[in-house]
């Protein structure tokens, strides 16, 4: 796997995100601008300028028309992908740590930080996926996290639920329309914050990464933990790969804990686990700081990782990746092929 190294940021990466076709890659970092890249060759399409603080999060609508971003300057901003034009700014009392569009791009959720007397909240905004349209100022919904603040959140299938991961290691399920709390389940070690939450393609299950060195695969409907992936280092991010049944975990010794350790001990590697067997199958080295974010290409052809070292590494999977199968998987594929033939 020959990676493409994107060195457009000057500070630590916070999130990388592919668009639906996997040809564009958006990245945010603590250096106040969002970059858009061509995923196949690493050429920069452009930047989105305007934020006045570290940018924590970015998401793109399913048609790659607009992107939303959340920043430490207490705003969520909406941009036109094509032109880089700022379409709308919503102000909040605290920093925005996570934004995500629902499956048809008509709603946007934002996770706000708990700070200065303000509790952490999850807000929902109605969006018109049209650069020309006037966006509403009103919040459609505000969920206040009284117990433990939400660190990450996302929309389930049919925008039915909002799922949030909390600082105390628990996961909550809220009604997507009313914002009522339905469940709160402790899935990760108590007190280990959940650092990432990413969906599978149809948004029926998701993966959480946590500082407790595990990632978990959880159903959206029942919040049932299906699988647990155990790593040897605190995790910052986890992604589910389409096409192949794998998950990618990224993490590493937190920057502040790394003192005299070399890259070897920092464990700055992307780890691939088999999604169903929960076994580690490989690692990809390269970063010289912890991995803050990983994203899988929705077309299943590659993945990207962003590190504390300020680089994004975009990898295209090679043949070995697609050919690799466990014996029992091959067995099943052969069986299916035989059935298809009949």
């Amino acid at each position, binding site marked *: 796997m020959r990676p493409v190294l994107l060195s457009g940021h000057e500070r630590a990466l916070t999130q990388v995100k592919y668009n639906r076709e996997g040809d564009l890659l958006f990245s945010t970092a603590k250096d106040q601008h969002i970059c858009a890249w061509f995923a196949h*060759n690493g050429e920069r399409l452009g930047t989105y300028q305007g934020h006045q603080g570290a940018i924590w999060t970015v998401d793109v609508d*399913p048609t790659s*028309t607009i992107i939303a971003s959340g920043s430490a300057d207490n705003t969520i901003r909406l941009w036109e992908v094509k032109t880089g034009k700022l379409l709308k700014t919503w102000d909040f009392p605290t920093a925005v740590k996570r934004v995500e569009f629902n*499956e048809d791009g008509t709603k946007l959720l934002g996770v706000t930080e708990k700070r200065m007397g303000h509790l952490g909240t999850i807000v929902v905004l109605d969006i018109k996926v049209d650069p020309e349209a006037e966006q509403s100022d009103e919040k459609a919904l505000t969920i206040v996290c009284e117990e433990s603040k939400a660190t990450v959140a996302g929309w389930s299938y*049919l925008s039915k639920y909002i799922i949030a991961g909390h600082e105390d290691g628990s996961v909550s399920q809220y009604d997507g329309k009313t914002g009522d709390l339905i469940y709160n389940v402790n899935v990760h070690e108590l007190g280990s914050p959940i650092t990432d939450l990413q969906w599978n393609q149809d948004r*029926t299950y998701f993966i959480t990464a946590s500082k407790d060195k595990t990632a978990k695969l959880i159903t959206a409907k029942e919040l049932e933990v299906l699988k647990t992936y155990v790593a040897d280092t605190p995790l910052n991010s986890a992604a589910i790969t389409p096409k192949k049944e794998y998950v990618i975990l990224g993490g590493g010794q937190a920057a502040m804990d790394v003192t005299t350790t070399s890259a070897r001990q920092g464990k700055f590697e992307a780890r691939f686990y088999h999604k169903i067997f929960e076994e580690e199958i490989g690692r990809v080295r390269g970063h010289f700081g912890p991995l803050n974010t990983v994203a899988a290409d929705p077309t299943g052809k590659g993945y990207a990782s962003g590190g504390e070292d300020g680089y994004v590494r975009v990898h295209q999977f090679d043949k070995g990746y697609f050919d690799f199968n466990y014996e029992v998987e091959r*067995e099943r594929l052969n069986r299916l092929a035989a059935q298809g033939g009949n």
Partner: protein
Amino acid sequence: MAPSYETLRDENLDEEDFDYDEVDVSDLKEKYEVQLEQGYDTFVVIDGLPEVTEEQKPKLVKFLLKKLNTVGKTSEDAIFMPFGDHGKSLRFAFVEYSSPAEAAAAVRQLDYSPLDKKHTLRVNKMTDIDRYGREGRIDEEYTPPHIEPFQEKEHLRSFMADPTGRGRDQFVMYRGDTVGVFWNNEKDQPENIVDRPHWTETFVQWSPLGTYLTSVHQQGVQLWGGASWTRMRRFAHPFVNLVAFSPNENYLVTWSNRPISIPDEGHPQLSIDDDGKNYVIWDIETNKPIRSFAQQDTPAAGPDGEVKKPAKFPWPAFKWSADDKYVARLNQGTSISVYELPNMNLLDKTTIKLDGVVDFDWAPATVKRDGVKEYEQLFCFWTPEIGSNPARVGLMSIPSKQVVRSLNLFSVSDAKLHWQSEGAYLCVKVDRHSKSKKSQATTLEIFRVKEKGVPVEVVDTIKDTVINFAWEPKGDRFVTITTTEPVGATAVPPKTSVAFFCPEKAKGNAVGNFKHLRTLEKKNSNAIYWSPKGRFVVVATVHNTQSSDLDFYDLDFEGEKPESDKDLTANLQLMNTADHYGVTDVEWDPSGRYVATWASAWKHAMENGYHIYDFRGEQLREEPIEKFKQWAWRPRPPTLLSKEEQKQIRKNLREFSRVFEQEDAERISSADVAVVQERRRLLEDWYNWREVVEEEIAEERAELGLPADPIEELLKAKAAEVAPNGEEQVIEEIMEEVLEETEEIVN
């Protein structure tokens, strides 16, 4: 408002109203009453004397004095023998010693000692008689002591019987706050036998034959064992730091750097005599202390006047002879004290004076010297140069205290004593300095203890500093590690050389001269770990941040032997090199089949955990464990098979190994089948679940009247917007072509 000091006095304390007499403090008085110095500490009471008349008395006193003076000073005047009305003695006497310590010694050493054939002395402290024998303290009626009904104990060696019949070894792991004992399962997860949080406070230790697991606590030491891991013994040595067993598990030495302080209300196991002592020697069988010792002061000045830095603390301070009969302690620079067990009395009541003695060590096995018929235990010692006298290495036989061999050496700056495991050889590593004291060289002086007259052979002159030396257990080969620079506090440890030595081939059963076999230069290695069965050795780099190699060598390689080595009794082969980052410790299992290596959190916090290798250096397992502290294989007692039986097994090894290999193959294949089946099940479950979920969602979508794929609709709409006439435009097409591919192998 809270009451201030002024108001408190007036309102809250009505002292006058309080009647102190009403309070009953008698229980407290009894508990805390100060034991006044009564001056009777030097007195002992001797019972069991013969009945004598006034005329016979002087004779008895004289006879008695001989005995009494062996432990202290007393005189005729200090013996008072009461007489009854019938003119005969009452068969007991009061004796005054010159000091309380002597009185205590008399109680310890003379109690139960025979006066003649008919009479046995009973010696007690006067204060004890008063304390325990005073009127009212003793019940007038005899109540027979309650004897607990016999309860069968668990078999202490049940651990030798592996329930799977595979002869696996056990080990203990201490990680986090939890101690667990496991069966070694090679590649697979070790099988847990017992796991207890907070089982120990500092570390765990096996007894030398594997019978007991020792846990160390602030209150003392506990021994655990048997199939159910119950507590077998408890030795209450407060603030104990270290523990050592005698080789046959009969005795235990505990040490604390804090002197024992016996509280006023007494101590469950120790007595007031042990107050201020640091070492306690215990009898494991009876669970009782035998004797305690205070820490020795290290001498302020060395032999040639220079002030030596005080040794941290010598451990083990008490060294045991191979058969538990003797224990000896070095009195730095003056003498060696040898104590006889089970009484812990000084052998012949004197220490062995050895001027300047620096170190000594017992032979690790009972050695049968050629031509010597009497029972003996050997220890070796060395004394440095004092004035014009040369340095000396000696071999002393106990109990005769004869120096059976000694060797004079000159220009010695240091010496280290290394016994071979069977006591057949003793290697003295002598560091010599030149006259100017500028250059150093090392010689190895090997005593062939079992041969007639104990011949000494000088092996080699080594220019470099020898930092490590190890004999092959039960064998006659050894490995040294040398370095050109002295090991100091340098950031990067200097390169080392590993050298192998073995005897030449000789006729018959004799062992030829020791010869240099091979030296491997430019290594980082600093530690040598021989297999307990000999032949295989691991040379490792431990406690090193840069390098962590483990080299596995075979000294009896069955392949081709180089021409140059044809007269030597070894064929060296490097079998494998492994790397365990941050390794701090290495230990062979007692059967010599596996090697455990671990990175302990006691030493550093990086990648703590363990690896298991087989004897060839093939890694079987690795497990990173947070806060991993300690690993210890459970030792095994010596085999019960006779020499002939062992020979028989070696002869039929092929037969046995065929059976074992078959068993292994079956087990592995059945395990593999289980894994595959489990995976098949997981895969099945997953796809079944997906099918159900996908169906459910499709239904839900249909109900809501939403399109099956919501995004496709959106994209269609967008496509229509971008290209209204419905034509698809290809903007850019990416082709990747491999022009040339070369592979380069870089060494």
